[in-house]
Structure formats: structure tokens, C-alpha cells
């Protein structure tokens, strides 16, 4: 990856709403080149999307999220990808990862109630033939999400003018 592309990605990870003009300023590319680079990154699947980081606690809206650990037993007809494809189908699944260690999949799910999440586990995950065990952990508090801190107290305590 060239330096400008790397910088482009850094800029988008920091703020996906950067305008093309500001991306051009930060990368040293012109705007047309930025648009082209973005199109290429999207086309190749390196940039999968641009989404918001929401602190649901600040909204008047019920929002429950959980991490579900899923253990599976594979057979000749079923591999991890097959199981993952089934689990990922559900709109309740925010992220799905295959893990090393005591369990196989870490599934981040969210819904508007604990019932939603429980239903997802009992109706969409547990019945899968390959699944041998699930453990559901409800999220109690979110402090940081995708690099963004949810806590206050980030004040700049530097002196405002120094040599």
C-alpha cells in the first residue's frame, strides 16, 4: 500500500465523514485521485462501509447488547464458514468473529430488549446442529467503541500558549 492510501485510511478511520476536499488536503492527493482511491478500496472490499458510532445511553431508546460465545462441533459437511454464514444472517448480529481459545465464535448482538437478544440465541443460534454450547454476556456499560471513548473528562489541560 502506498503512503497516500495508508494516510487516506487513517483519515477515514479517524472520521469517516471527512469530505473529499479535506481528504485531499490530508493526503496530498487531488480530489479526483481521492475519489478514485476510495472507489478502488470499496471495489476491492478493503473499505466495507461507513457507519456511525452511537452511544445509545444518550438516547431515549431501549438498546441492549450482548456478547455471545458459541462453541461448535464440525463434521465432514459443516465447516466454520457454514456456521458463520448462518449466524451472520440475523440483523441482530453486529459482529461475528472466529476466536482462538475456549470457544469458537464471538457474536456481538444488539436488540431493543433482553427478550430480543435471548430469542436470537435460543431461536437462531442454539438450534443449529453444529452448535454445542452458548454463553451470553449482557453488556452493562460501554466505555469505548471502535476507538471512540464514551466517557467525559477528556479536557485539554495543556497551557494554551507555550514556546
Amino acid at each position, binding site marked *: 500500500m502506498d503512503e497516500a492510501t*495508508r*494516510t487516506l485510511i*487513517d*483519515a477515514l478511520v*479517524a*472520521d469517516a465523514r471527512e469530505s473529499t476536499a*479535506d481528504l*485531499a*488536503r*490530508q*493526503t*496530498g492527493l487531488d480530489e479526483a485521485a481521492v475519489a478514485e482511491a476510495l472507489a478502488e478500496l470499496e471495489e476491492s472490499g478493503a473499505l466495507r462501509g461507513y457507519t456511525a458510532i452511537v452511544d445509545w445511553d444518550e438516547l431515549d431508546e431501549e438498546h441492549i447488547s450482548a456478547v455471545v460465545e458459541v462453541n461448535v462441533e464440525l463434521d465432514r459437511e459443516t465447516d466454520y464458514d457454514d456456521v458463520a454464514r448462518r449466524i451472520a444472517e440475523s440483523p441482530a448480529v453486529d459482529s461475528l468473529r472466529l476466536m482462538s481459545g475456549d470457544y469458537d465464535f464471538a457474536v456481538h448482538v444488539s436488540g431493543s430488549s433482553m427478550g430480543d437478544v435471548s430469542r436470537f440465541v435460543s431461536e437462531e443460534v442454539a438450534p443449529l446442529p453444529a452448535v454445542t454450547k452458548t454463553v451470553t454476556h449482557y453488556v452493562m456499560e460501554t466505555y469505548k467503541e471502535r476507538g471512540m471513548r464514551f466517557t467525559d473528562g477528556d479536557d*485539554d489541560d*495543556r*497551557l*494554551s*500558549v*507555550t*514556546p
Partner: protein
Amino acid sequence: MSGDERPDGGTEGTTDAPSDGVRTDGSRFAPADRVASVAPSGIREFFEVAESRDDVISLGVGEPDFTAPWPARSAAVDSLERGRTSYTANRGTEELRRAIAGRVTRYGQSYDPDEEILVTTGASEAVDLAFRAFVNPGDTVALPTPTYVSYEPGVRFAGGEPLPVRTRHEDDWALTTDALSEAGVDEADVLVLCYPNNPTGATMDADEMDAVAAFCREHDLLVIADEIYAALTYDGDHESVATRPGMRERTVVINGFSKAYAMTGLRLGYAMGPPEAVAAMTKVHQYTMLSAPTTAQHAALAALDRCDEDVERMRREYDRRRRYVVARLSELGLAVAEPGGAFYAFPRVADVAPDGDARAFATELLEAEGVAAVPGTAFGEGGRGHIRISYATGMDDLKEAMARLERFLS
């Protein structure tokens, strides 16, 4: 100096017999001449105005906006928990000196941790030690201008005579041998170099540094190279004057942890040079500082061992901001030399400032739009007509500051 004649011809005063040693307000504390000879800080009034308002976006900060990397902070905490609260060796802990020696090889520098490295309380102390160790009263110390604010007072406190050497926007603020000759540096005793430079962000390329090194050899100058921003270069490798032929034996290199590791408040730096140079500086250090802060030395060791990725992350972010700020300033019609290092841009505002005065420009910008930038003359006469913009500030604030600057200029 009881009873002795003072350099200005006065005699020591007493409280009931006012003389030159007593201020007109009756205080006994008339500053010593070498202290009185130093002008008050050129940024103080900006600081006061900026601090008094809560809507100010400051582009006037000379330190990183990041927090020190966690491994460094945790090592500091750990050292306290283990009760490491005594002095260290005058020169700093052996582990830290070894780690420093290993680190600076990436700049082509090679120093023996036993005899050629001194750990100091910030690079600032190292600068002061170098002046006190090597400047005799009346010695001429050449200082490129514009440059960091501490050198001139440091030279005066040591009894030396500062000799300004102009660097120019047209040369991208690099130091040239023409400028050295013009200023009469061939007759000077010491030359201070600060590259990457505060306030211009200038770096020296290999050829420019070769030429300056040749000048220093030819005229037998001692060089104090403040390389505190060495880790923050964007367009090429850091070039150190000390790595040029015949320069190691006449150069004290100063570096530290403040800028690269965002550890300003931990106050830790170091000086490197031939054994006799470090011995002389250590002599002053041992009687004034004894040793650099122990807690900070533990943090610094962790910084060297485990924080390369943090530094690279910060460097990349500075680089993005650098490009953004330079692009915006250029769009606004302000001439700015591409800064190759540190975290400053130094645009010319003379063409748009009242009477070409950058200080008036900075004052009005602060009052009208709540954007604080430091007028170039705070860094010496060479900074006339320019302002220093620090991009050690988050991208959102930089964008807002540039929008305000645009409004101010229109």
C-alpha cells in the same frame, strides 16, 4: 559578592541604603545583570488573553496533544509501587543510558552509554548545561533565527553573547553557509542547531547539513545540536550534524522524550557527546540537579522498549494534520514553507497584517476570532512577518481554526 564592585559600577545595597542593588520599589531582589538583560517572554500576553477566554482554539501550544503512551505511564506507576524513589546515578540509570545508546543508532549516532550519555531533566536542562559547560563570559554563540525561545536567555545566563543568524522563508528556513558567513559566525565560538526546527518545522537535508558541518570544521566551532524533534520527520530521515565527518568530536547532541513520546510533563532528556564533553556537563548537572527524576527514567526506559508503535501512530497523525494545515494555509493565500518535521507551520502574514506586523495580526486574530497563534518575533527577529501555527491539536479544532482564519482574512 559582598562589598565587591558590581559590573555596572554599583555596590551591593542594603534595605536602608538604596543603591543600584535595590529596586525602586524598595525590594532587595533586583535581578542580577545577566538575568535583567533577558527580555520578558514574548508570548506571555497571548497566554494570558488565551487563558482568560473559554472559546479560544489554541494553535499556540508547543507540546503534543497526545497523552504519554500507556506502557510509559504504567512503568512510572510501577516504579513508584516498587518504591524506586531514591536518586539514580548522576548520569542516569545504566539501563536507560544503554537503551538510549541503542535507540540513537537509527540516526547514525553511536555513543558509549558509560561515558558519552547524560540523562537530564528535560532537553531544556541539557541545553542549559551545554551553555554553562562550554560558554565563557564574552564567548559568541551563534543562534539561527527564528528559533526556539530558550537559547538566547540560556546564552546570556551563561555570560555569552548571542549572535543571530538569519534563516529565510525562501530557503525553506534551512541554515545556509551564506547566512553563517554574513552573520560573521566564522568568528564565533559556538553554533546552536535546532532541526527539525521550532518554530518553522524546517528540516535540513543531507547536502545542507554537509555544508554547515564543513563550515563548522573550517572555523573550529563547537556545535550544540538540539534534536528534540528528531523522531518527528515526515519527508525523509533525520539528518544529524554529529554524524558528519569530523563533527562528532565537536558536537553535543541533545534529545529527549517530551515530543516524540508526548512526555513533556515527565521532564526527561539527554545529552550525548565525547567523554570530555559529557564529563563537563555532568559536573554542572551533579551539583545542580544531582540526577534526573527517577520515576521519569523508568517511564523513559519503557518508552524506548515498548512504544515504537505509539510514536509511529502519533507521527502519522501529525503528518496528516501537517498536510491539511499547509494545504489550507496555501488556499487562504498565505505563503508557507513545507515543514519537514516537528509539529509547526510558519506562514507569512506580513502581506495581510496591519503594517505588516505579525504581532498585531496575532492579537487581532485572537481578539476577533478566538484563535491563538504565536507571532514569529517571539522566536527572534528572523520570525518577523510570520506566525507559528502548532498542529499539535485535534483535527476538528484545526478545521474550526482554519475556518475562523478564513473568515478573519476575508
